């Protein structure tokens, strides 16, 4: 923290002068910065650039697709086979797994069945950011049906050296298979069988038909965990996979060719270069076959932009598919946004008329759509929860995306489905071929970006500006507050007493902030305890979210009361200005730290946190400004204090999205449970940065 030089020093260095100038005009500068930050955030859709394939080696679409109608027929046959198995009553899951495995083997792939046991994701307070335990021994269980079984096939590249692989994942629910899942399996199978015949393979191809009966993410994550850890098939080998097949197996298999142990053996295929999760959905129809791309992984990590680029390029320019990324639909109809868009359009036209060289070309409709997409991209990154099974790959630094294909016709329309499968197959083939061309891993393009359209992105260099502008006033205001109180104190000290004993007074004044720091520390300690409380509350059996939430808040209040009572004597004698400056310093440190872990969380958090921190002042303290601004300030303070309370802000958000009657007391509990289950750092941010800051703000508001 910069300390202002005593005014007695006649001349000082330029940088110090500049600093002191900024500090002395902190109020004005902070208002400018905040407004500029918000405007920069709003302008992000305008500043978005078109994406381009950065890595030359990818060469998307340079080869003619080999996926033909023959492959579509094969896919259709496979879909029919699988869909028929649905009628079987018991053990149909095993039957489907076996059928997939059989087909994989017939195209010449190495096959094994990955068994995993469903383990409920549980909150463990110290597990954030820590890697998974190393030796994972599969747990024994007596029945095959309790475990998920995912067949995995590996095509070894004919002339490849087996160092790298490309992974294709198709989740399906083995217990209750739907037609769309069967279609995705059929699509993957036809691509897989095509890839087993092609000559250009340089990387091994792994097809994981993930059994998603316990969730798509779980099966993929457990497979990846086993892939990167030693697996001992013999532990679970007492019930090897052949036992599971025993009941249904009546084939006259050749003894030597059926080696049950081989199906249990976990096979690997080198370092994964990229992974594609392929799903077929039938949610909403559009006039064209559509691909939805999901890319957000845990804690706002994104796959390399090139992966999205090649999918987009191939889908749009080769297969004529409609590509979509996540969008907030409700923002598309927002009147406010439309208005902002129109204003911007007018402004840019004005600018262009002034100087025809500026080609800004802002279109109101584009702006609204870009904002809606950007908001969704930012929201999912800020939430820190993966948007699909691809998130599991990112934890191992593998670039992965989920492609959700949806046909324009109904799933039962044979003709529509055939052309849809042809396009989808060619798209997947093209993407795999591009990744196969890749000599190095993905590194050319961006990793930190927001999408504002499938082919538009905002890179880190641009979106950082908004955050930097928002956070910049914090240290400045803290310094201004601190220096102003120090000056005031020394001034009063000088006026009251002789100059000889002014020194000890100023010293006590300069150490004055310690009292406030103690309080701030205490509040942060309280927040830490509060953040750990859910772990203990969740141990209590048979509770619902409402009671959990109530007990959480009650125990937090109790702890707060106890803490303040116990440490009453330590935390007295502070000024609210100093307290505010220490709080702001803590908040700025928290925000900067969070921006490293998950930028979007910090960005979203700063929009709420920064105005609240900057504006807060005791309600009872009179201000020497005209009545109207003072009243406005007070109202804004109260409003922010209400809105920034995490459960309240969640409730408001939910109310806006789904109507206010859906708000429930347990909502916040459910939300935080959701966050910690996914190890999201957002939970830590809310509990350790936002909550103490909010409490301190309320404390200052009620200061007298």
């Amino acid at each position: 923290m910069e300390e202002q030089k005593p005014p007695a020093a006649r001349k000082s260095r330029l940088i110090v002068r500049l600093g002191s100038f900024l500090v002395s005009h902190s109020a004005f500068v902070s208002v400018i910065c905040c407004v500029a930050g918000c405007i920069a955030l709003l302008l992000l859709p305008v500043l978005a650039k078109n994406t381009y394939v950065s890595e030359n080696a990818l060469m998307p679409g340079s080869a003619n697709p080999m996926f033909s109608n023959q492959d579509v027929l094969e896919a259709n046959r496979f879909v029919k086979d699988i869909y028929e198995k649905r009628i079987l009553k018991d053990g149909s899951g095993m039957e489907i797994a076996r059928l997939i495995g059989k087909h994989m083997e017939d195209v010449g792939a190495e096959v094994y069945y990955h068994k995993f046991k469903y383990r409920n994701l549980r909150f463990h307070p110290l597990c954030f950011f820590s890697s998974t335990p190393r030796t994972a021994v599969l747990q024994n269980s007596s029945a095959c049906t309790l475990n998920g079984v995912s067949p995995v096939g590996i095509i070894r590249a004919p002339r490849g050296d087996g160092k790298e692989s490309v992974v294709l994942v198709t989740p399906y629910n083995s217990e209750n298979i739907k037609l769309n899942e069967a279609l995705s399996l059929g699509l993957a199978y036809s691509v897989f069988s095509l890839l087993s015949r092609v000559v250009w393979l340089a990387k091994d191809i792994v097809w994981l038909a993930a059994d998603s009966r316990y969730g798509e993410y779980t099966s993929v994550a457990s497979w990846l965990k086993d892939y990167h850890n030693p697996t001992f098939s013999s532990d679970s080998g007492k019930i090897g996979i052949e036992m599971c097949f025993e009941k249904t197996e009546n084939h006259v298999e050749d003894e030597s060719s059926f080696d049950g142990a081989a199906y249990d053996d976990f096979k690997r295929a080198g370092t994964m270069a990229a992974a594609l999760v392929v799903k077929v959905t039938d949610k909403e129809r559009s006039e064209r076959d559509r691909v939805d791309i999901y890319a957000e992984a845990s804690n706002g990590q994104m796959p390399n932009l090139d992966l999205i680029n090649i999918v987009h390029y191939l889908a749009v320019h080769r297969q004529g598919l409609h590509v979509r990324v996540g969008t907030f639909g409700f923002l598309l109809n927002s009147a406010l946004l439309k208005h902002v868009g129109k204003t911007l359009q007018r402004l840019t036209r004005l600018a262009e008329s002034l100087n025809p060289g500026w080609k800004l070309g802002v279109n109101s409709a584009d702006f609204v759509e870009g904002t809606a997409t950007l908001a969704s991209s930012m929201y999912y990154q800020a939430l820190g929860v993966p948007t699909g099974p691809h998130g599991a790959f990112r934890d191992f630094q593998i670039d992965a995306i989920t492609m959700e294909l949806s046909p324009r016709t109904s799933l039962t329309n044979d003709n529509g489905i055939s052309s849809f499968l042809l396009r989808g197959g060619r798209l997947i083939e093209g993407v795999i071929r591009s990744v196969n061309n890749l000599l190095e891993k993905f590194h050319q393009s961006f990793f930190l970006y927001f999408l504002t359209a499938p082919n538009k992105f905002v890179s880190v260099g641009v979106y950082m500006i908004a955050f930097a502008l928002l956070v910049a006033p914090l240290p400045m205001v803290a310094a201004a507050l601190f220096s102003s109180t120090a000056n005031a104190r020394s001034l009063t000290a000088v006026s009251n007493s002789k100059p000889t004993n002014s020194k000890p007074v100023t010293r006590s004044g300069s150490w004055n902030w310690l009292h406030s720091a103690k309080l701030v520390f205490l509040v942060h300690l309280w927040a830490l305890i509060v953040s750990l409380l859910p772990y203990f509350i969740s141990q209590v059996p048979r509770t619902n979210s409402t009671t959990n939430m109530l007990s959480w808040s009650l125990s937090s209040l109790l702890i707060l009361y106890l803490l303040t009572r116990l440490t009453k004597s330590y935390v007295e004698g502070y000024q609210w200005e100093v307290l505010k400056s220490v709080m702001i310093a803590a908040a700025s440190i928290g925000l900067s730290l969070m921006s490293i872990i998950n930028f979007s969380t910090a960005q979203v958090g700063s929009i709420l946190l920064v105005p609240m921190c900057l504006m807060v002042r005791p309600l009872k303290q009179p201000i020497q400004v005209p009545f109207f601004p003072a009243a406005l300030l007070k109202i804004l303070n109260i409003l922010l204090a209400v809105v920034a309370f995490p459960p309240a802000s969640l409730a408001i958000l939910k109310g806006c999205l789904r109507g206010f009657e859906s708000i429930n007391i347990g909502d916040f509990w459910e939300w935080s449970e959701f966050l910690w289950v996914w190890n999201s750092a957002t939970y830590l941010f809310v509990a350790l940065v936002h909550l103490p800051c909010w409490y301190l703000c309320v404390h200052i508001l009620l200061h007298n």
Partner: protein
Amino acid sequence: MTKLRRRFNPTVFLLIIFFFNSVLRPALALVEGGEGLEEEFTEELLLKPLPDRKVLAHFHFQSSAPPSIANGRHHRLFPKAIAQLARKFQIRELELSFTQGRWNYERWGGFDPMSAANAKPPGVELWAAFDLPLNEIDHTWKNLTHALSGLFCASINFLESSAAYSAPSWGFHSNSSKLRYGALPREAVCTENLTPWLKLLPCRDKTGIALLLNRPSIYRSHYHSQRLRLIASEFTGIILEQALTVVLQPTMRSNSLASSGYGFLQPSWSISSLFGKEVVGQCVLAKTSRIFFELEKDLAFKVDKLQPLSSWNTSAFELSGIPNSNIRELNAVKNLGSSVLYVFEVSNSNDHIPLDVGIRWKIPLVWSCPHAPFHMNRYLMGSGNERGSIAISLRSTHLHERFSKASDGCAVHAVIFQVVPWYVKVYYHTLHIFLDGKTQIISDVVRKMKISPSEDKLSPGSMELLLRFPCNIQSATLTLDFDKGFLHIDEYPPDANQGFDIPSALVTFPDFNCSRSYQLDDSIHYKSPLLSKFQEGNPVQTYTEVLLVPLTTPDFSMPYNVITFTCTVLALYFGSMLNVLRRRAGEEERLERTKASEKPGLIPLLLSKLSSKLKIKGKEPESSPSLSTSSSILGPKLLTKVMLVGLLAVIWNYYLKNG
């Protein structure tokens, strides 16, 4: 020597010449007439159908030269380049292999002489044993790598640096301290390596079996390994084995593909369909020229069950072309069947009667190749750019059960030899061994171990382990932790972002020797080098996969930024440093006073005015609220100034545009 020669008078010299002529000439002639000491060349080809509908073709060319004292520097058949190489570097044994693709131990067999000797790791592998004093070996190795690199158009010279090769003591082949081993997993293999290799053959690829080496068909293969092995000694002379192993996929007819179910008919093929060429006569310089057609043990057993395998036309298959003879393997275990070799003599063929060995299957058959006692896998564990682990896992194929029903005392030995480059810093103390998923005390399993840790930028780490397992284990896993090192920016190879390779580890099972002895017919009265090679056998060995370790890489595209940043920091540092050193407070004040007395220029005046204004504001804020300061800073004077500047800028812009 010169002195001696000077003393000799011409008569003595003549006498010596006469002596040489009269005594040694007949001796030399005798030697040349002898059977064993003539230069020889043989060419052989072995064809074998593989269980996964592929075909293995193994070309074996062998040239031998008698000890060099016998015939001086001249060679009739033997390639001179190799002879010079062997002589110059005093090579006792050398093996160089160029391989593309991976040998599939599970499907193509891991327990036969073919796989044990010819399955090689991808890329280039070179090892050589020298007959030199220890201190000269490293130097000679460097020269050898350069010589070979020039000879075979490959970047073998990268093995020159001491960080690239290792000196195994007992884990690799023999117990020798004079052996050097190096591997380049990333080396691409292509025709440019094959052409110099073919030049070593007396007939090149013009006639004989080598005629089949049609480049497109060879390089379309699933596995392709080109090998050169040199054995030299003073007594036997130099023997050069050149072997080329390819695994080809015969083109399938579509109807066989469509037939579903387990009964796939194997594809029928012949030499002409595989290579696009036929054998038309042997290389005239070759002593023997044969084509073998091998039926795997298991396959022969299954065919035997249908109909005793004696002729070339059985109910299971039909060979195109009539073999000259067939040989059966002598096998101790009768009920497992024995492999069959059909022998075709190339010498019988010519332009009009080309030899086109092939097979036509009549019924679908499924068989399997003999497996090594353990299937090997090596993989990386963990994620992130900091550390990871290498795991080597062995999965039992239950081979021992076939020989002897599991007895408690039985044990299998395995030797693991692994070289790890220095930038993957392996902590050898973290070696963990799991047998059937249970951790073992290392001393219980490891019988012998030699570890030489890596030295940064100097030598790779190498590990030789002799392990002893009980026979009845299902799986064994070894794990080793490592840290990923940082390289200097100029040590990164091209395409550094791909990651770095850890060469294949070699696992040898010394208990198992895969030799095959054949009951030789009378018709083969002369010996075949290929069959004698099979008879000799060697211990079963398996190469593991090459691993790819992603290391942290700098952003190579940003040296400019780095330079700019560094320069900025340096400039700032030096500027402030100079300022601190140069400035004197008293001096400054004196200067100021003298300056004040002088009439200041326009710009300093403006600046000083501005700064004084700012300073006034700096003192104010505690007395007046911020709003008033902001209004004072946006005073009419400043505002007009700003607007003036803005207006000027706009006018300037327009003026420029119009101009």
